[in-house]
């Protein structure tokens, strides 16, 4: 899959200063599940899944998600933040193989 790591961020079109804004973030990622052999034993290997999502706004961490393999394929997260100043909203996804995928949105007031 060449699409791994594609991040989509969706923020409302109109944001007013002081609003609490809900953002939706999606990343294309396989989120490998635990595999078992014929005896039902877990196969030990380094499963590739996202285990951390970090949301920063104006350089400050607003929310972090610590996730396990129980999160669905192509994980989707939503969260809120308080839009106090125009600036950059950044969402980083880290997976267990060292991958780091990033999506940004410029927060502007209309």
């Amino acid at each position, binding site marked *: 899959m060449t699409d791994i790591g594609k991040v989509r961020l969706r923020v409302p079109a109109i944001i007013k200063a002081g609003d*609490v*804004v*809900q953002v*939706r973030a999606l990343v294309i990622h396989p989120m490998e*599940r*635990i*595999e*078992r052999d014929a005896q039902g034993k*877990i196969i030990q290997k*380094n499963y590739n*899944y996202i*285990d*951390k999502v*970090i949301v*920063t*706004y104006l*350089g*400050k*961490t*607003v*929310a*972090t*998600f*610590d*996730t*396990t*393999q*129980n*999160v*669905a*394929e*192509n*994980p*989707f*997260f*939503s*969260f*809120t*933040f*308080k839009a*106090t100043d125009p600036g950059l909203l950044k969402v*980083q996804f*880290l*997976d*267990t193989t*060292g991958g780091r995928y990033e999506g940004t949105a410029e927060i502007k007031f209309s």
Partner: protein
Amino acid sequence: MTGDHRVSRRTMLRTLSALGVAVAGGFDPVTPGTAHAQALGQNETVEAAIKRLFGGKTIKDGSPAIKLDVPIIAENGAVVPVSVSVDSPMTPTSYVRHIYVLADKNRIPIVTRVTLAPEAGRAFMGANIRLGETGDVRAIVEQSDGTLLQVKREVKVTVGGCGG
């Protein structure tokens, strides 16, 4: 996941930024990703997971404050939308520090742990999760004063989504 660990990490981040060390470095998880994930998600029962996370602390019923939004019937266990929102002023003195989502019947019961800052404005999280079979989904909320609140709802799953 003890309190000590959290404090030390936070202090460390603060120190790093105070020293003006590269900001990108400051965001790196202190522990390697894999070790961290194994610590959070383990093959255990939900009771063991709660005990491991919270020790023997009592968990109060949080139904007036917490809104857990899950489907009653999930046709496909591989993608189940879940959202949790908590009544909280989200001020620096009183805010929701963590929202945990647990699925009772999953082999790894802990689904996600969300750490929020007061800047989030509202205690809210949403995610698509996997459910292995019909069972309770619970949300446990840890407030900044250490109070634990919990709500749970049953989700009927037609086709399991955890494999294995």
